[in-house]
């Protein structure tokens, strides 16, 4: 460590010289963050830029030599294509409906878990299995359940119906699969927010004469607002990216494809890097808008930015 140096400056009018301790701290902080930062930036920043670059070209992987610059025409093609709008519409629908259901069911589940008198361990395990299970596995389970002839759920429906082949029914089933998988996770997030509501405040409301619903509406939910907003933010962003369930359940056929499925199809089935990249970039912009709305308009706290406690 550096020895004391200020013998030539005894009355010490210090300039902005960094104190040794603070300097060490700063150095360590930067060092510790560097590897993670480098990895994250390298693997995302460059590919993003590259994706934008690709989206401005006409690049068919079957004829790579013919790749050439076309400016925004890919975007024009995508935005004027009914496929894009249908995919967007399907995505928005799935997002809104599944998140809404997850919020309500998750809240109910959280309230139950909060008050659970016994069997906490069982409930917790049961709740975590949907979270832990590989999404495609669950999706296959649903697919087989609904396939006529094979599945027990299909057997419950009127003879001859194949719900996975009908657009609206299939979308409904996709939503069901999504909701089944993520409601437990939502419940956990909400449970954590619920635990922050001071017990005494709720009791005071009880003494003041509030019924269960009044307490919920007027005391508990307002106090949970930050937690709810954060949970909503993450779930909405997640839901917008829906892919696994749709891929397995319907493959995106019959008008059930989301924007991610559309992008995948164009990239890997049609091998059209230009259009596929354009779709990817547009999807990213949609996600950015959603996040912006949540943070600026609804005031969801962007996590991790709180000031130091010293």
């Amino acid at each position: 460590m550096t020895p004391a140096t200020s013998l030539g400056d005894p009355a010490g009018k210090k300039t902005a010289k960094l104190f040794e301790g603070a300097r060490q701290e700063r150095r360590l902080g930067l060092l510790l963050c560097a590897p993670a930062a480098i990895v994250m930036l390298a693997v995302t920043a460059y590919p993003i830029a590259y994706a934008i670059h690709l989206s401005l070209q006409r690049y068919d992987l079957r004829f790579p030599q013919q790749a050439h610059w076309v400016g925004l025409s890919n975007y024009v093609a995508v935005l004027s294509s009914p496929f894009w709008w249908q995919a967007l519409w399907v995505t928005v629908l799935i997002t809104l409906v599944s998140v809404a259901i997850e919020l309500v069911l998750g809240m109910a589940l959280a309230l139950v878990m909060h008050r659970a008198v016994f069997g906490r361990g069982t409930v917790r395990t049961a709740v975590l299995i949907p979270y832990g299970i590989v999404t495609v596995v669950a999706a296959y389970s649903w697919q087989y359940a609904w396939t006529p002839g094979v599945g027990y759920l299909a057997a419950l429906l009127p003879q001859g119906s194949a719900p996975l082949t009908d657009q609206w029914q299939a979308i409904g089933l996709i939503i069901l699969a999504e909701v089944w998988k993520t409601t437990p996770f939502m419940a956990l997030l909400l449970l954590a927010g619920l635990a922050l509501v001071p017990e005494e405040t709720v009791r005071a409301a009880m003494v003041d004469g509030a019924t269960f619903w009044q307490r919920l509406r007027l005391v508990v939910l307002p106090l949970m607002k930050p937690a709810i907003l954060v949970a909503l933010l993450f779930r909405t962003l997640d839901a917008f990216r829906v892919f696994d369930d749709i891929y397995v359940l319907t493959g995106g056929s019959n008008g059930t494809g989301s924007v991610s499925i559309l992008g995948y199809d164009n990239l890997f089935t049609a091998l059209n890097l230009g259009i596929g990249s354009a779709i990817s970039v547009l999807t990213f912009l949609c996600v950015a808008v959603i996040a912006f709305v949540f943070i600026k308009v609804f005031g969801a706290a962007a996590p991790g930015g709180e000031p130091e406690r010293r």
Partner: protein
Amino acid sequence: MAEIVLDGITKRYPDGALAVKDFNLTIADGEFVILVGPSGCGKSTTLNMIAGLEDITEGTLSIGGQIVNDRAPKDRDIAMVFQSYALYPHMTVRANMGFALRLAKVDKATIAAKVEEAARILDLTQHLDRRPANLSGGQRQRVAMGRAIVRDPKAFLMDEPLSNLDAKLRVQMRTQIAALQRRLGTTTVYVTHDQVEAMTLGDRVVVMRSGIVQQVGSPQHLYDAPVNLFVAGFIGSPGMNFLAATLEQNTVRTSLGDLPLDDCKRRALERANAPREVIMGIRPEDFEDAALVDDHGAGPVCTVTVDVRESVGSDVYVHFTESEGPAHSADLAEIAADSGLADTGAQEHRVVARLNTATRATEGAHLDLWINTPRIHVFDPRNGTNLTRRPDQSMN
């Protein structure tokens, strides 16, 4: 030699906020100095600067004759006891106390010996192999002290170490700390917001407010000869009573009556060019039930109506309301805000008097109060200065 010298120490934060301004103090080797003041007065910041946990904006700090402004905490040979104790939860008491020595690469045998010795002094020997989580508050506090003692440093720095203990334990530990410091003879700087701790523990007390040192002196000196309103109101519990007053020829006219001034005071007031409107300060013990005072204690007597009577066994405190309304001053407003008095919405100005338990005062009844006039203080309401402080009282 472990003398600590703070010369013009100032702490300014990047946003311009001034936490400590021009702090000057020489702490002799082996002295026990207390920094006391309301929250936010800069006492903890000063302590952190001595420790090296905060950098010093201006001024020099010397420990043991060497300037240490730029040295990291570990190079200053000081030990610190934190308010929260900051014991390492995953280490045993033994490991906690030996940690610093381990970092300094002292050999195992020496570490073991020093830890055993410190544990013996603090009566922790049977707890050496336990974890902090399994100890009581008082035991944890002792481990924190043990961690400091083991290093045999030039100085101990203690940041409100007793605040987290309950009242009775606090009193016990206070005497233990005092005895320990006397036995080890290590220079100690101790921060607290509790003026009782300040009065009982320190060789010298430094009263701070808003980053500026108000007064430095022995506890008794601060009590008898406060340099301004703030110190007068801060030291002593229950605090000094302040009343609005006007100065006439030889008297101080207050709502409790006209109080004659002795020569010393009169001269001091003349010298200080005292204004007409002043604030009079009088401590609760400078009142007495007139019925209990014999004639030798001749002095003015006033009649008041007792609002509240409190008996603590050894004394009786009576609270009454002064008719003219409270004394006004920015300093008093701050003291009221600090003590929470401002929030209680108490409108009337309450005066507290301490009486002998033989008193017959009862709530709601009239009471004749004798006032010990020579003991009053007169303050300038514009800047809070104690105008009647005798020159020979101004030594540190």
